[in-house]
């Protein structure tokens, strides 16, 4: 009996191993978030970030020089706007003092380079060149100059893994400006999102901006997220189906900022 079983295993080892491996793979696929995997991935990225550093820095240098040329042009225009802004800020400060408000920006922005954008095009996990050594923590918020990018999901010593908000599972508590109506934003496709729980009793228009609401435990309020591009009534007629476009071009992201800690 045992020898027959042994013969069978020897004869059919390929099929048996395939079934076992397929089974294990399907088991892994059924688990959407695995923290052991995240830790291992972060450790590996920590190791490779040292090796890749010269190449990344070279690439970064080239881009910075290109950007520098463009920025020089923008400086003149911005200087003019700055003068206006300073006057408005002073006015704002005076009004805030009158109302008893305080400065609400309590985060420090740490610049970070994206050192790896995933094995496949369009992946939602990115690797940043900042880690525990730079005070990065799990759930630290990531932004770029256009708006919200995502949050840190695992931290290594020199690098960290971050999840972007443009992914099928992501949900974001938002606020539509200027009406200050709250809702939940979901990724749609490409660089677009949908919001489908805003009642039609509220006036919502194309072109209005979407910001974080501050109701979430992770994202602070008033970080720009995107712009509304289409407003239609849903099938039941009670809510809107709002479509919009993220401010951040996720596909072309290279540099980001990480919110580090309270000032």
């Amino acid at each position, binding site marked *: 009996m045992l020898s027959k079983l042994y013969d069978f295993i020897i004869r059919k*080892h*390929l099929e048996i*191993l*395939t079934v076992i*491996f*397929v089974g*294990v*793979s*399907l*088991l*892994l*696929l*059924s*688990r*959407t*978030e*695995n923290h052991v*995997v*995240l830790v*291992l*991935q972060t450790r*590996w*990225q920590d190791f*490779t970030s040292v*090796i*890749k550093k010269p*190449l990344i820095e070279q690439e970064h240098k080239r881009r910075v020089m290109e950007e520098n040329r463009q920025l020089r042009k923008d400086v003149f225009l911005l200087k003019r706007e700055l003068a206006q802004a300073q006057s408005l800020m002073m006015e704002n400060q005076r009004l805030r003092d009158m109302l008893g408000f305080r400065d609400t920006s309590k985060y420090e922005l740490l610049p970070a380079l994206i*050192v*790896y*954008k*995933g*094995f*496949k*095009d*369009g*992946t*939602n*996990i990115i*690797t940043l060149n900042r880690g525990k050594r730079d005070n990065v923590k799990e759930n630290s918020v990531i932004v770029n100059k256009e708006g919200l990018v995502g949050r840190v999901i695992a931290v290594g010593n020199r690098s960290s*893994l971050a*999840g972007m908000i443009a*992914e*099928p*599972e992501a949900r974001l508590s938002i606020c539509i400006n200027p009406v200050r109506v709250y809702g939940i934003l979901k990724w749609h*496709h490409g660089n677009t999102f949908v919001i489908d729980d805003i009642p039609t009793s509220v006036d919502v228009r194309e072109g209005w901006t979407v910001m974080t609401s501050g109701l979430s435990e992770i994202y602070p309020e008033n970080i720009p997220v995107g712009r509304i591009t289409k407003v239609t009534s849903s099938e039941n007629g009670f809510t809107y189906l709002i479509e919009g476009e993220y401010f951040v071009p996720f596909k072309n992201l290279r540099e980001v900022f990480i919110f580090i800690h309270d000032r």
Partner: protein
Amino acid sequence: MIVNEKKSSLILYPLLSLLFLIGIIFNDFIGIAGIRPDILLVFLFVIALRESSLIAIIAAFCFGLLQELVLPGALLYWGLSPLAKTLLVFTLLKTLPLILRSQKLVFFISLFGLIFVYYLFYNLLYYAGFINWLTVIYRYTVPESAYTFLILMLVHMIFPLREK
């Protein structure tokens, strides 16, 4: 003859390992317009064509796991690479006697076909729900298959794949 084969393996495997390390560490830099080759797949083909079926199937699963560990992509699909690679190598091993007996051109078309089917399976699942299937084929599957096949051909030029 056996000595020659051993010598060839002594060069081939370190070379493939080096290629593999370059592939995984500098994966971002070898991409062309977002299209990256799967060096592990090339390695797997070589193993499947030169080593025993037991080694090949274990390598397929382990390489799949390794790929997902060192090349983080979407957490949602953790397990897809070992699944796809195991199925690919199983199919390759089952069809191998037929493929090896066929003419040279048919042999290469079969290899390309297998790579294409692997990418089709992987990409259709990976991009399911958010990219149209036709786009998945022409934007990702065809170029990725071609890029990987090209590297496999480069390896073949140095170490012929049909010698088992």
